């Protein structure tokens, strides 16, 4: 069994760019499960259902749950309180890993930490998993914390102290909605047609759509992925 763990950002990008059906098709192509923590469900369905502007998109995501495309951790037999406890530990450590002077900077929140908690639980059970996270900070913290330090220093114009040992040790591998649509494109699941039969333009359009709806990806990365094709 393989698990794809989603935070809010990726699902919001996909639904806002009208590509949520890609999730269904991709799932049909592999023996895998899509899991969202309860805190993510709150952010992508429960809360937006009360906001007219986002109500329809929340209903589309609810439909993915109803159809069994997205599941909650309980479906894997993962205890809710275990996730909540690990989430708290991760939040506490992660938010005490970057300091401005003596002040710890609160960088991440519950939903983001809950996805990491689930990864840790699944790793302990030796279940292969991948995290799907569009927002930048969480990914940078676990992939290259030194670069996050550089970014914070550059933007905040202040010295940042990185306490690397405080960052929870989780073997987390990340992809974004960008990579998901790339896989869908490679598997021939994208049915758009360019009048000049220019397939690379279709790929570029898909990648730009994810970027403009929230995925943290640079134009250079889009160019490179399009070139790879």
């Amino acid at each position, binding site marked *: 069994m393989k698990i794809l763990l989603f935070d809010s950002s990726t699902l919001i990008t996909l639904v806002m760019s009208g590509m949520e059906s890609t999730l269904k098709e991709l799932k049909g192509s592999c023996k*895998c499960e899509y899991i969202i923590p309860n805190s993510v469900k709150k952010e992508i369905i429960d*809360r937006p259902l009360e906001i007219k502007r986002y109500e329809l998109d929340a209903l589309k995501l609810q439909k993915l749950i109803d159809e069994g495309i997205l599941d909650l951790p309980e479906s894997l037999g993962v205890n809710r309180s275990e996730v909540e406890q690990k989430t708290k530990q991760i939040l506490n450590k992660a938010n005490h890993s970057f300091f401005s002077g003596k002040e710890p900077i609160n960088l991440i929140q519950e939903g983001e930490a809950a996805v990491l908690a689930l990864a840790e639980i699944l790793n302990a059970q030796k279940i292969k998993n991948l995290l799907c996270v569009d927002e930048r900070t969480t990914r940078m913290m676990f992939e290259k914390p030194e670069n996050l330090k550089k970014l*914070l220093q*550059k933007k905040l114009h202040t010295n940042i102290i990185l306490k690397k040992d405080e960052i929870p040790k989780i073997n987390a591998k990340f992809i974004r909605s960008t990579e998901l649509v790339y896989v869908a494109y490679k598997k021939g699941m994208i049915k758009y047609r360019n009048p000049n039969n220019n397939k690379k333009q279709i790929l570029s359009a898909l990648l730009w759509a994810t970027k403009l709806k929230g995925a943290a990806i640079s134009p250079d990365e889009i160019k490179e992925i399009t070139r790879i094709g």
Partner: protein
Amino acid sequence: MKESNNIIDILKKTKRAIIEKDITSLKELSDRTIHTASIYQDPDNIAIAVTVYSLGKIIQKKETEKNKNWKKLAANFNLFIDGILLALKKGDMEKFRKQLEYLRKEINKLSPDFRKQVQEVFRKASINKASKIYEHGISLEQTAKMLGLTIWDISEYAAQKSETPKITATVNVKQRLKQAMDFFK
């Protein structure tokens, strides 16, 4: 309050910018609290950023330009800012928040038709500040919480505004694509 001297300076300059209808200065001044807001995540700093930015937007609206009583209105705004400044200098944060609330109410008085627009101005001002804070390295969800917004409100704007410099590309493009392709094999 963190870095109250910075806020005092910002508010003094805001008063002048209001009288001169200097929208550019108001926008720049509203960004001056972002560093502090990002580090300390102090709601008072954030409230000042949103209010000063909103004042700039409100002045920009044509309806206000047509307002014959602009001088009186500007004087009123500045009277409330004086109240905020006085509370800050005394370190009276309760009064500071009350005075800030009075200023928001005064803005709401512009005209009945304008009230809805003002609400939207404040929402958009919050989104603008949120996208700046996200740019500074704070996560999407944390930023949303700080501003009282949802991730839905800010993800689109944050992605468009953030420059995503080279340092944010933490894993090789090919490696990340391979990870995804391997998973769906």
